[in-house]
């Protein structure tokens, strides 16, 4: 058992090294980072880096952070609602098209959206949505994965609650919002946390759609910074650190739901 803990502690240190490096670089001077010997401690602890970062007009960090917040929050809320509705319809409302919708949903699970980025780009560009928040947000709202999870969840949902609501005269709509949804916090949080982290960290689609400064998400802005002529290490790492705050908050406070979401993603 002692050996097991020793291995775990060593592995934990290895896993944390990249985060340590991020922190050290964010609060170091360029010289400290570029020294030929490793400086374990940061040499520029304080908030001066932040004012430099947000004052750097070449990299509109504040604007891209705001874009990311809008895109991720809207995508998370809308995806959960759209998928919950669709999952409920597929699980509970008997209709001859249900099988077709389900098969088409499962088929798209096989072919991930990243592979079809060119067709989606063609569609979005013909809608005139390049360099717009709509273009960043809307195509990502229709998650086959989330819909499938909700369908599976509702299949196992006890009938009794809905039946008593229907006896009281409630239709599908009222039953869903008044009786079903208040009992789905766990699955909504599980799907929501996964969607939020995926949306916040997304790169390829925002790279294609956010083609001007006003529509870059934080990941695209950081990437541009990273591949530019002259890299300001401290600012870049500090910007990355700031950009991780929302996902770290989700991670710390909602990890239970995130883990549930991950567990569900592996077992259909």
């Amino acid at each position, binding site marked *: 058992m002692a050996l*097991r803990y020793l291995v775990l502690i060593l592995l934990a240190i290895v896993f944390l090294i990249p985060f340590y490096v991020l922190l050290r670089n964010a609060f170091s001077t360029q010289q400290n980072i570029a020294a*030929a010997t490793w400086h374990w401690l940061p040499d520029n602890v304080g908030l001066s880096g932040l004012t430099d970062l947000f004052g750097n007009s070449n990299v509109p960090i504040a604007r891209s952070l705001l874009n990311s917040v809008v895109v991720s929050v809207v995508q998370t809320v809308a995806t959960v609602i759209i998928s919950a509705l669709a999952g409920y319809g597929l699980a509970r409302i008997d209709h001859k098209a249900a099988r077709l919708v389900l098969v088409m949903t499962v088929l798209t699970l096989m072919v991930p959206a*990243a592979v079809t980025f*060119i067709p*989606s780009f063609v*569609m979005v560009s013909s809608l005139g949505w390049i360099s717009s928040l709509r273009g960043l947000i809307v195509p990502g709202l229709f998650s086959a994965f989330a819909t499938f999870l909700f369908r599976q969840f509702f299949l196992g949902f006890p009938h009794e609650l809905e039946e008593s609501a229907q006896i009281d005269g409630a239709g599908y709509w009222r039953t*869903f919002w008044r009786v079903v949804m208040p009992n789905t916090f766990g699955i909504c949080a599980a799907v929501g946390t996964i969607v939020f982290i995926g949306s916040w960290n997304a790169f*390829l689609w925002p790279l294609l759609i956010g083609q001007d400064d006003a529509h870059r998400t934080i990941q695209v802005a950081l990437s541009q910074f990273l591949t530019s002529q002259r890299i300001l290490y401290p600012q870049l790492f500090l910007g990355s650190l700031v950009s991780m705050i929302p996902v770290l908050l989700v991670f710390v406070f909602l990890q239970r739901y995130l883990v549930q979401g*991950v567990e569900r993603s592996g077992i259909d």
Partner: protein
Amino acid sequence: MSAAVVPRPDVVENRPGVRARRRHRALWFWIFTGPFFAGLMIFIYIPIVWSIYLSFFDARNTVTPTKFVGLANYTYLLTDPTFLRSLGTFVVFAAFIIPVTWASSLGLALLLNRVRVAKAFFRSVFFLPTACSYVIAAMIWRLSIFNGARFGLINIAIRALGGDDVNWLGGDGYWYWVALVSLRLWLQVGFYMILFVAGLQRIPADTYEAAALDGATGFRVFRFITLPQLRSTSAAVLLLVLIAAFQAFDEFYNSLITVGGYPPYAKPPLVYLYLISLGGNSQDLGLGSAGTIILTIIIAFVGLLQLRFFGLGRKEDRA
């Protein structure tokens, strides 16, 4: 007489009240699933069909092309050494990342499984990198840990051990694979570890008790009890890692692209497609569409093969 009182099913079906109820149900079915289904059609199915159409045209800088070129886009791609090399890059990447991720995530889950104290802490530490974006991970790897200059962390360690600096991502031999595989492993392994932890918890305790009664211990228990019981979890993990590797883009792009462009090596299929169709100076949507169709066929085929091979989806396999 009593038989005539019970109406025949088809008569019931055609009664006005039942028909109205069925129409009512159909209406509500589409109110619930309509938004999702419409989005699926508009942003996935119609674009794919449109792309099949575009793939037969010279569609440079246009989505409504007029010059039909038949299979020219396909023959161009399938004879382009760069495209074939990008498929080779994927195969090499998959050959590393799939077994390494499977073994590491299973290993971490097994390590955690019997721990009592601080289990949640260690689980969180291994899971934490999944919160990091590939862009930031690529930045940390490229600029600090695997920087080819003297101040890269690994290079400092190598020099301390008496070795020479390695230009990790600059095209020195095949060293870039060390950086790229370790990056993805670090970022993803916690995700798959969670799946294995859940899988281990589903193994009934009496299976182990029975094995203990038979005198099985240590590796034999793992080999003949644990591993077979984790079969469906393993299959799911392998499939998810494979599909994710096929979509690799973010870390390759951000680790390797420079002001001068993308280097000729380590170019996976999506990066290749991006560079020839959208990332360059002109947009060649015909070529890009043909590439999409080829990749879609490959990933669907590989997915089906793996489903068949591992029997994922057979109900009796599941705990």
